[in-house]
C-alpha cells in the first residue's frame, strides 16, 4: 500500500512538472509572437498586433490614434487584368482601404460582406479592397472571391506604402487632409464599422483636416511674406537707381547676359 502511494505521488509530481513546463513554453511562444507583432485573435489584440514594428499602434478599442504614414494614391491591376489607379488624395470622400488576401480565413467574412450591394460603409467612405500584386497573390482564387460590386486593386506597393504587414487590415484615409485617420484589424465587418465610427466620432477626421488647413495657412503666410520682402527689396533698389538687369547686381559676371562663370 505504501509503495503504491509513493509511486502515485511520484507520478503526480512528474505530471505537475510536465504541465508547468508546457505552460511556460506556451507563454514564451505567445510572448515571442506578441513581440513579432503577430496575433492569433484579431479582436483581442488586433490593433496592437497588426501594426508594423516601429510604428505607433492604436488601442484595441479604437484604431484611430497615432501618427501614420501619409496617404498615397494607389496603382495596380484588377483581378481581371485591368490597369487601375485609385485617387485618394484630394478626394472629398474619405476612403476605407481593406487589405485582404485570398488565403486568410478571417478575410472570408469580408469578401462575403462586400458582395452586399446595400453595404453600409462607415464614415460614408469609399471602399477599396487592396490585395497583393498578382505575383504575390492567387489571381484565380481571388476571382472566385471577389464580388462584382467590389473595387479591388492588386498592389503590393500599396501594402508597403501603408506599412501593412498582415490581413485583414483596414485603413481609413481622409483625402482632404491626405492623412491616415484610423487603422487597425478586426475579425468582423461590424467591428470595422464600430472602429471607423469611433474614429469619426472622436474627432480624428476633423482634427486631421484642421491640421491640414493650418499647414496650408502657414504656407500661404510664408509665401506672402516672401513676396512682401521681395517687393521691399525691389523698391529699395529702385529708389537707389538700381533697376532689373543693372550690372551692379551681377558683380561676378558683369551682367545678366554675360557668359562669364561666377568666381
Amino acid at each position, binding site marked *: 500500500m505504501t509503495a503504491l502511494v509513493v509511486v502515485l505521488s511520484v507520478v503526480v509530481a512528474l505530471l505537475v512538472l510536465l504541465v508547468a513546463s508546457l505552460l511556460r513554453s506556451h507563454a514564451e511562444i505567445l510572448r515571442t509572437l506578441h513581440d513579432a507583432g503577430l496575433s492569433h485573435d484579431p479582436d483581442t489584440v488586433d490593433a496592437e498586433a497588426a501594426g508594423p514594428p516601429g510604428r505607433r499602434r492604436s488601442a484595441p478599442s479604437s484604431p484611430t490614434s497615432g501618427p501614420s504614414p501619409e496617404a498615397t*494614391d494607389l*496603382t495596380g491591376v*484588377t483581378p*481581371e*487584368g*485591368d*490597369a*487601375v*489607379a*485609385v*485617387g*485618394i*488624395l*484630394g*478626394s472629398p*470622400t474619405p476612403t476605407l482601404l481593406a487589405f485582404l488576401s485570398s488565403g486568410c480565413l478571417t478575410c472570408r467574412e469580408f469578401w462575403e460582406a462586400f458582395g452586399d450591394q446595400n453595404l453600409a460603409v462607415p464614415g460614408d467612405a*469609399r471602399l477599396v479592397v487592396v490585395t497583393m500584386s498578382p505575383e504575390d497573390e492567387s489571381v484565380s482564387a481571388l476571382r472566385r472571391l471577389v464580388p*462584382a*460590386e*467590389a*473595387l479591388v486593386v492588386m498592389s503590393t506597393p500599396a501594402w508597403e506604402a501603408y506599412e501593412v504587414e498582415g490581413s485583414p487590415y483596414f485603413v481609413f484615409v481622409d*483625402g482632404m487632409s491626405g492623412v491616415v485617420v484610423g487603422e487597425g484589424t478586426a475579425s468582423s465587418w461590424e467591428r470595422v464599422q464600430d472602429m471607423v465610427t469611433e474614429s469619426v466620432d472622436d474627432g480624428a477626421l476633423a482634427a486631421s483636416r484642421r491640421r491640414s488647413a493650418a499647414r496650408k495657412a502657414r504656407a500661404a503666410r510664408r509665401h506672402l511674406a516672401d513676396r512682401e520682402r521681395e517687393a521691399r527689396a525691389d523698391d529699395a533698389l529702385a529708389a537707389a537707381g538700381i533697376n532689373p538687369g543693372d550690372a551692379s547686381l551681377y558683380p561676378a559676371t558683369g551682367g545678366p547676359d554675360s557668359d562669364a562663370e561666377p568666381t
Partner: protein
Amino acid sequence: MTTLAAHGIGVSTPAGWDGRISVRRDGSADQLFSASGTRLFQTRSRPVMHLANFGFPGAIGDFGSGAVELMGENDVFAVLFEHEPESTATALFRSVGVPQNLTAREFEPANLRRGIPGQSGYQAFFQESGRAFCLYVVLGSHARRARLVPLVNRVIASLEITPEIASGATA
C-alpha cells in the same frame, strides 16, 4: 502624379484621379463567318481607358454610363476608346496625333452621348501610331468649362500611345 500604363497606352494622372485601362468586354464576336462557314475576319477586343477626377463607381460603360450621372460641377471624365486599326484609313480618323490644348469653345452640351443637363462634352477621332481612337470628354458643368478644360489638357498632355505589339495584332 501616378503613372497608368497598359496595352500600349500610358498616362500620368494627377493626385486624386481615378484611372482604368481595360480591354472591352462588350460581348462582340471575335470572328465573323460567312454563311458557308468561311472565316471572313477576326477581330480582337480593343482597350478603353477611363480617367476622372472623382471616384469611379463599380461598373462603367465604355463611354461613361454609370459614372457621368454621378458627376459634380467640378468633375471631369475622359474616355480613350480604340477602334479597329483598319479605321485609320477612313476619313473620320484622318487627323493624326492626340488632340492637345483643347479650348472651352470646343465643349458643347450637344456633344454629350447622354444629354445630362448642365454638363458639356467633347469628342474627337484621330489616329496615333497606326491605331485609331476616339477621345471623349465630359465636364460636370458647361458653365465652368473655362476652369475645367485645363485639368483635362494637363492629363491629355501626358498621354502616350505606342504602336500595337505584333504578337497581339489582329489575326
